[in-house]
């Protein structure tokens, strides 16, 4: 399964994985733009509005019927944050042509539909439809507000906002209530027209079709995509050190019965010419795998919390620890998490722990090759990181990571900020 990368038009890149492994084929289209406070909501809203209808299928019912006819093909709008890059567009998956009854072919129909959604939106007087924009704006607002429903995700987001204040990274991928509220259909149409001209485009296909056929289908579907001065100056600003000399602490209260702890770390010099497989192995040893120090010690041995795990954003160089705890375990959990990091920094990593961490990373990456959606997501990240190797190579590199590399990375890690979401003390006995 070799990735073939071609440039179809200026700034329009296609990565093609030809394989007969799956019964599902997948296709994605991503416009890349810098994530920032002013435009994040526009970027989040645009694909949702475009997904409402195009000239040939002007409303959801017509579009959904067409997708039914295409054997339940899924074609969704998608917006993702990769470091400080906002990737917005469409993701489709559908029965691979090889498995359709009667030798039908879906690929050209799907690329055509995606092209129409992007380039021939349902407009009035050349402007995106006001009712679609307002309706989707309301739903986006609801989605932003509903982020509070998942308390750990909420805590992580509040941590990021405060820790990275002043960095684009603090901006949520959906933007904020304030910026969504100010979007009208004229403003969104202007943004849309400009983005079509300037945004680099990443296309991805995985399925049984030959790369030439895919390239031809997509070139055809995107024939009318206007290209102006493409903005290649898009990327993520990596901050290596903490904002202040000491860790900053933030606490908030909500009506919850379990406390949510979220801790953010900078990776220091480890982000200078970063060794991505080694960073992943470090994370797996610290808190990213069930054999990790956080899982084994904080959760299993000390019963300090229901869960404790770490996650790493390779694009930004930020490590995040998330944990659900009883309110009165805050000090104990915090000091134990710091103690586990110190242990790693002091070189306390057994052979068994190292091997398990390497295996966890290798296994996770090999598994990517089993899922079209995972391959799509991995490939988008690799393209943004400027890496050209696949998941199997990543796995093989992870298996060669040494203890010294892991300990050296741990030594660079410093805690920038801690956020704690606790209950409301005066209401502590409510509803029990």
């Amino acid at each position, binding site marked *: 399964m070799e990735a073939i990368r071609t440039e179809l038009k200026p700034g329009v890149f296609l990565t093609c994985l030809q394989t007969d*492994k*799956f*019964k*599902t084929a997948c296709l994605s289209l991503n416009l890349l733009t810098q994530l920032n406070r002013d435009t994040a909501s526009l970027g989040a809203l645009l694909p949702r509005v475009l997904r409402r209808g195009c000239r040939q299928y002007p*409303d*959801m*019912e017509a579009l*959904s*019927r067409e*997708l*039914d*006819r*295409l*054997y*339940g*093909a899924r074609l969704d709008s998608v917006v993702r944050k990769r470091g400080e890059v906002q990737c917005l567009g469409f993701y489709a*998956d*559908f*029965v691979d042509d090889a*498995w359709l*009854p009667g030798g039908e072919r879906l690929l050209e129909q799907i690329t055509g539909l995606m092209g129409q959604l992007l380039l021939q939106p349902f407009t009035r007087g050349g402007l995106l439809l006001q009712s679609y924009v307002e*309706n989707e704006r*309301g*739903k986006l607002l*609801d989605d932003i*507000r*509903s*982020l*509070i*429903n998942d*308390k750990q995700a909420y805590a992580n987001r509040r941590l990021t906002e405060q820790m990275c204040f002043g960095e684009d990274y603090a901006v949520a991928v959906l933007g904020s209530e304030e910026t969504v509220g100010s979007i009208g259909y004229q403003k969104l149409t202007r943004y849309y027209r400009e983005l079509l001209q300037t945004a680099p485009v990443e296309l991805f296909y995985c399925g049984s079709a030959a790369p030439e056929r895919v390239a031809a289908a997509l070139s055809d579907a995107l024939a009318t995509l206007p290209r102006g001065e493409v903005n290649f100056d898009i990327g993520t600003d990596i901050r290596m050190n903490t904002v202040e000399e000491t860790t900053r602490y933030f606490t908030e209260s*909500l*009506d*919850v*019965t*379990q406390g949510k702890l979220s801790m953010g770390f900078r990776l220091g010099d480890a982000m200078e010419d970063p060794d991505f497989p080694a960073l992943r192995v470090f994370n797996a040893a610290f808190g990213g*795998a*069930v*054999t990790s120090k956080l899982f*084994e010690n904080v959760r*299993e041995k000390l*019963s300090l*919390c*229901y869960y404790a795990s770490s996650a790493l954003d390779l694009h930004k160089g930020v490590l995040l620890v998330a944990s*659900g705890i*009883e309110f009165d375990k805050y000090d104990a959990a915090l000091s134990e998490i710091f103690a586990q990091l110190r242990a790693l920094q002091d070189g306390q990593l057994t052979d*068994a722990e190292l*091997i*398990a961490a390497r*295996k*966890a990373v*290798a*296994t996770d990456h*090999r*598994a990517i*090759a*089993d*899922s*079209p959606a995972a391959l799509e997501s991995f490939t988008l990240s690799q393209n943004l990181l400027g890496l050209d190797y696949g998941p199997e190579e990543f796995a093989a590199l992870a298996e060669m990571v040494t203890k010294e590399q892991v300990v050296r990375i741990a030594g660079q890690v410093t805690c920038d900020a801690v956020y704690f979401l606790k209950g409301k003390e005066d209401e502590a006995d409510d509803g029990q």
Partner: protein
Amino acid sequence: MVSKYYPRMGETLYTHTLDNGLAIQVIPKKGFQKSYAMFATNYGGADRRFRYQGEWLNTPAGVAHFLEHKMFDMPDGSNALSVLSANGASPNAFTSSAMTAYYFECTEGFQENLKMLLEFVSTPYFTEESVAKEQGIIGQEIRMCEDSPDYALYYNLLKCLYARNPVRDSVAGTVESIREITPDVLYACHKVFYHPSNMRLCCVGDVEPEAVCALAEQVLPKGKGEVPARDYGSAEPGKPASFRHKAAMEVSNTQFLFGAKLTPAKPGPDRLRQVLTGDLALRYLMGESSPLYTSLYAKNLIHTDFSAELDYAAGAAMLIAGGEGRDPHSVLAAVEEALSELRRDIDTEAFQRIRRTTLGYCIRSMDRLGGLCTSLAEAGFAGYCPLDAPEMLENITPEEVRQALLDWLQPERIALSVIEPLRP
């Protein structure tokens, strides 16, 4: 071993039942990195009262889930979760109202990991100390669930629908009920429900079916066991026990779930037919291409998270639908309106279109190996095979779908659960 090729799905299923009663199903998938194994028992949160060796026994709520947590402890002091993880496998387990499943996925050492899985699930080891510690951990889990609006919404609906059936109670039990759990209770329930006769082993991936059978034969206890009878309380009427439940929680928008009880088809092909009829029916009436869905969406009464499905557990079956939405009563009124149209006629063209969608989903589900493993196990306990779906789909008529909807969604059968924000 018996093998059968399913040309529409492009898969071969190997099946065999051991002398001890264990049913084994394997789907080999060449070229996939990960292989999956699931060892499941037909024992879930709702199986609290049962007959074993002629005697009816009552157990506290939450034992099945508690057992799931404690099964990983081994007599030598090791933890099966850690051993499997250290071996590169990703092990896990879940408990539903109807079953408890232990599974792993791995890229290498499948046979070795499978041996470990079969061994640890068959080896009970509980101490007073480990049970007491787990009461703390599960107590935390229960409290975390109580913070979740989805959880509250779901169980509030089930408590509306059912007066007695234990499916209405949380699988994990309550902080109080799990205090009654002792090592003796756990040993007893393990003995009753973890006999191979009451279990299934399902494997999907780049694996050898014969080798799977040989290993299971070698590792597991010999001889058939008793499959316990269960008591889910006396039969309940079609009408819900109560119609409405409303609660307030820390959520941003109102969320709702409505549902209705239906009579479960008997295990076997009839069940598959009902499952697929349900899929077609719900897609037809309120799927994304239905006039009902699109008009509710345009009016901002539902969100993209709106979904509908059939659920089976503990001798019960129900239809459940819902999501976010500020005015659930208007949604129910619109459902009733769509049904009155259906009373006149069904749009056969729409039906044909929807059948293509369901067929597409069935074919594509063969790519999700973990999900396939789970559906083999669940369907196996319900007496059917999910790979039979394409043929069965062709036999279902529009009239069948129409009748099912009109029967299931009679207004007097529908209950509604709502969670509103604390502050409006």
